């Protein structure tokens, strides 16, 4: 006879789970009792929100399913923004929550919340297990659903009596879960692929627009090969950064609201847009009716619902990006550069409209990111918080490969970065993990300094401190007549706080300290916090105002090195 909790731990191990991020509570005591001597690493975070973000960071860095665990009611509710984050960015996680005993369900019992009801719209799927015999099959189905097709979060709610119930081994339901309604299409239709190739052969101004789906599918290599085959310039979304090396001659960087000028011009002028694992998000397209108006569109996505959601493609291809791109390469008849004059035009844009960097002796965040990129040679795992810090990193870090850049894209979750960096380090302990944070975002999960200290997670914390909620302040400056309503944050002694947790740190006030400070942090054997006092009024440019066409950027580069806002 085994308890439900024991079956759960056993099932997780069968799925290859090695690490769980969690926080105990009454309803999950049976699980924690099992964990006490299970060969499974459990990381005790200081807030359930950090558990889910850490599981998410783990999943993004490793490509495996991340697992988090919380108790019922308030614990489960604290997972919400993390589950929604994973859902928006298609990250495979399995969230385990405790629940009040089945007999008390619906009675407003102590620490009860209808977590399956609450998470219906923000999970790929969820389960309330009412019988201990179902646990194994449910875990199996949950991992399968989370990590196949378009990845996403799956929640399993486990009532306490189900966890304590004793079941004979032969009664435990096993085998393959029956999922009659779930059959993701992986292989692209060959007729559609041929049609897409025809469009490429005939294009004069083609651009690849690659999203997070390229990275999720492990299709970066194929994507770059296709680009090289026909000399197709590539722009990526925020989620697609790293799909093509920053230094690749065909790479245009990010497009959209804070994309590069040259990427936005290229997309606006293109006559063929090849969207791969991207979803035409409003932060990418700007005013939709003005987006790539001259372009025919090929849209490759594993989720049929993404096709035709925002734009109607000329050639839709449903399938796994890796498989579709491999087929495209295989079926290509004509090969070789199809667009020399276009490439020249794109190069000219790139030369004339580079990203803005100012060297005026002040502490500018762009220079910090560039220096970090130089010191790490574009390597490491770079995790960001949300806001200006995120956009500066996206613009200026020279990512080399996929799964190196971890950031909350779709939901824009402040407080995500720091715990996600912890998760990423547990996935890739040999990598240097750096979290780039704003002073606002960092304070949203600052308590995780305790987790970092306890487990000696050698994450490097780079705070770009402007004593503002910087991105909101930027919008207030540009669109609300400089009325800085509640976006100014008082000065915080972050180094002092780090010290209180037993973590080393340094405050950086001047430009000549940047290099040494970064070197000190990177060389230090353990976690290290850097508090950079950056130019307070620094904005992220270029910027496409909400509702404008992406070619209508403000803060464009001019040759005096400043911006022409």
């Amino acid at each position, binding site marked *: 006879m085994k308890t439900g909790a024991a079956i759960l731990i056993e099932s997780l191990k069968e799925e290859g789970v090695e690490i769980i991020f969690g926080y105990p509570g009454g309803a999950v005591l049976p699980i924690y009792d099992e964990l006490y001597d299970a060969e499974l690493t459990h990381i005790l975070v200081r807030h359930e929100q950090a558990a889910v973000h850490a599981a998410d960071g783990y999943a993004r860095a490793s490509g495996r399913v991340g697992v988090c665990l919380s108790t019922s009611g308030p614990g489960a509710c604290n997972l919400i923004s993390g589950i929604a984050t994973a859902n928006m960015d298609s990250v495979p996680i399995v969230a385990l929550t405790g629940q009040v005993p089945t007999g008390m369900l619906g009675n407003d019992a102590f620490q009860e919340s209808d977590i399956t009801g609450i998470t219906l719209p923000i999970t790929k799927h969820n389960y309330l297990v009412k019988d201990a015999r179902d646990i194994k099959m449910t875990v199996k189905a949950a991992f399968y659903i989370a990590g196949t097709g378009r990845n996403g979060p799956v929640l399993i709610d486990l009532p306490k009596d189900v966890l304590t119930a004793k079941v004979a081994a032969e009664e435990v339901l096993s085998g393959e879960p029956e999922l*009659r309604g779930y059959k993701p299409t992986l292989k692209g239709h060959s007729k559609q692929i041929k049609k897409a190739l025809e469009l490429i052969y005939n294009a004069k101004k083609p651009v690849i627009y690659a999203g997070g789906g390229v990275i999720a599918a492990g299709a970066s290599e194929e994507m770059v090969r296709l680009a090289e085959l026909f000399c197709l310039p590539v722009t990526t979304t925020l989620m697609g950064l790293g799909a093509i090396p920053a230094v690749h001659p065909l790479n245009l960087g990010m497009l959209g609201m804070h994309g590069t000028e040259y990427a936005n011009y290229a997309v606006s002028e293109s006559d063929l847009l090849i969207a791969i694992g991207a979803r035409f998000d409003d932060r990418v397209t700007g005013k939709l009716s003005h987006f790539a108006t001259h372009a025919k569109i090929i849209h490759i996505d594993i989720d049929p619902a993404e096709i035709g959601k925002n734009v109607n493609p000329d050639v839709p291809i449903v399938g796994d990006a890796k498989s579709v791109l491999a087929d495209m390469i295989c079926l290509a008849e004509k090969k070789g550069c199809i667009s020399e004059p276009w490439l020249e035009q794109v190069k000219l844009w790139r030369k004339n409209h580079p990203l803005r960097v100012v060297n005026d002796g002040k502490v500018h965040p762009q220079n910090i990111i560039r220096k970090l990129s130089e010191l790490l040679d574009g390597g490491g795992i770079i995790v960001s918080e949300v806001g200006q810090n995120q956009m500066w990193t996206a613009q200026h870090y020279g990512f080399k490969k996929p799964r190196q850049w971890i950031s909350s894209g779709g939901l824009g979750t402040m407080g995500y970065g720091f715990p996600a960096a912890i998760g990423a380090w547990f996935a890739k302990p040999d990598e240097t993990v750096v979290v780039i944070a704003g002073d606002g975002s960092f304070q949203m999960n600052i308590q995780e300094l305790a987790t970092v200290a306890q487990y000696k997670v050698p994450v490097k914390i780079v705070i770009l401190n402007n004593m503002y909620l910087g991105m909101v302040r930027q919008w207030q400056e540009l669109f609300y007549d400089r009325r800085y309503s509640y976006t100014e944050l008082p000065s915080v002694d972050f180094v002092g706080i780090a010290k209180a947790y037993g973590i080393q740190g340094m405050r950086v006030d001047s430009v000549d300290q940047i290099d040494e400070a970064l070197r000190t942090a990177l060389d230090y054997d353990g976690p290290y916090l850097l508090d950079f006092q950056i130019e307070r009024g620094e904005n992220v440019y270029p910027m496409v105002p909400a509702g404008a066409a992406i070619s209508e950027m403000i803060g464009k580069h001019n040759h005096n090195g400043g911006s022409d806002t």
Partner: protein
Amino acid sequence: MKQHIISVLVENKAGVLARVAGLFSRRGFNIESLAVGTCETPGMSRITIVVIGDDMHIEQVKKQLNKLIDVIKITDITEKEHVERELAMIKVHAEPGSQRSEVMQIAGIFRAKIIDVGAQTLVLEITGDSEKIFAMESLLRPYGVLELVRTGRVALQRGSSGSALRQ
């Protein structure tokens, strides 16, 4: 903008209707009518959804529904030959005497059944398409419609094709 009748085969599990209905509210789709019940295959239910929208909108409805793990098959039967029915029960004010006999006459014309007789009321059961129900309701309104309940539309494709799951 036009009405579409979508037949959805789903797992007969707790919470499936909430998933389907929740999807409609979350995505801002407008449900005109929704009817659900068990069907020919054990363990499955069939939901008939009537939804109004343009082609792109309806395409999204179907694709989003298809993403739900518990949704097994979706058939848009609007353009296919089909039969559709709705059942309504109408409690109408009908004093004994001429008023009552008039109401009974109307029921007769519409082939409605009288399923309850009260001191001052009659309950009529009518089956048909929405127009028929609407027409009868408007004729009864002057007598005083006290309560009205409708099942929502159900529909099936004619002939051998349909939304059944091929085993």
